[in-house]
């Protein structure tokens, strides 16, 4: 992105379109988070009892995984701004691997619940839990696809200090996935 185009978009990192997408996603998740909280208010005992069946440790580990991945992707952006293509690809690769760790841990949690016969229709807590975390899970997968494309290009030296909007776009999407989980974890796993 040229300096002129950046000014037009108030200096936002990456492609402006991703910011419209980020805001739309945050709005959608925000509505669902609030809907969860009000649904819980109608049946606190059911929500608290169902929450007890979740693996809070897995949720916390996944929080640490996403936060660390956000740090890695920020280091990747910093590297490309200094023309360090290989370092950038390395940090983004490490981010991608942490995304895979998140997917593995969350899949194990889903498997445990499905094995226990729990579905979307078991009760309203599980409906929200499964829908919200699966929706978020799909965003992690989407972020990994975007990262993979950017990693391939970065390895080929396709970005540099003057042209790294692609890296920033992927990074901004990835940070959004982290921001959503920052609310999701306390809301669903901790608050009772």
């Amino acid at each position: 992105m040229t300096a002129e185009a950046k000014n037009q978009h108030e200096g936002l990192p990456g492609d402006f379109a991703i910011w419209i997408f980020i805001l739309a996603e945050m709005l959608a998740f925000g509505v669902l988070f609030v809907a969860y909280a009000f649904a819980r208010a109608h049946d606190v005992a059911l929500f608290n009892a169902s929450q007890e069946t979740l693996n809070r440790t897995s949720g916390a580990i996944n929080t640490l995984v996403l936060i660390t991945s956000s740090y890695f992707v920020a280091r990747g952006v910093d590297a490309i701004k200094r023309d360090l293509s290989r370092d950038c690809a390395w940090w983004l690769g490490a981010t991608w691997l942490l995304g895979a760790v998140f997917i593995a841990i969350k899949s194990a949690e889903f498997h445990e619940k499905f094995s226990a016969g729990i579905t979307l229709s078991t009760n309203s807590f599980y409906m929200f839990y499964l829908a919200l975390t699966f929706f978020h899970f799909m965003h992690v997968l989407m972020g990994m696809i975007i990262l993979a494309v950017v990693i391939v290009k970065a390895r080929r030296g396709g970005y540099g200090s003057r042209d790294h909007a692609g890296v920033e776009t992927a990074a901004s999407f990835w940070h959004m996935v982290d921001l959503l989980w920052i609310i999701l974890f306390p809301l669903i796993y901790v608050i009772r």
Partner: protein
Amino acid sequence: MNANFPTLIWLALVALTLTTYAIGASDMTGSGAMLTVLFIALVKGQMVANYFMGLRHVAPGWRLLILGWFLIVGGLIALAYKLT
């Protein structure tokens, strides 16, 4: 960007996450625990948005939008909690 600064932010985020986890693992319940974990989420969100996403270099409206999202969503979650 000084490499040490984002590392400090990351360490603070880890510490805040462990605090939330400890509150969840303890028997702490009620409004105090709820408001504490929501406030921690707000602080973590600001750290990620301003320092990792780089919004501190952007027009203030965008920072306010993210802050506003955390305040409104967190505020409504707290309100719903108080209704019980």
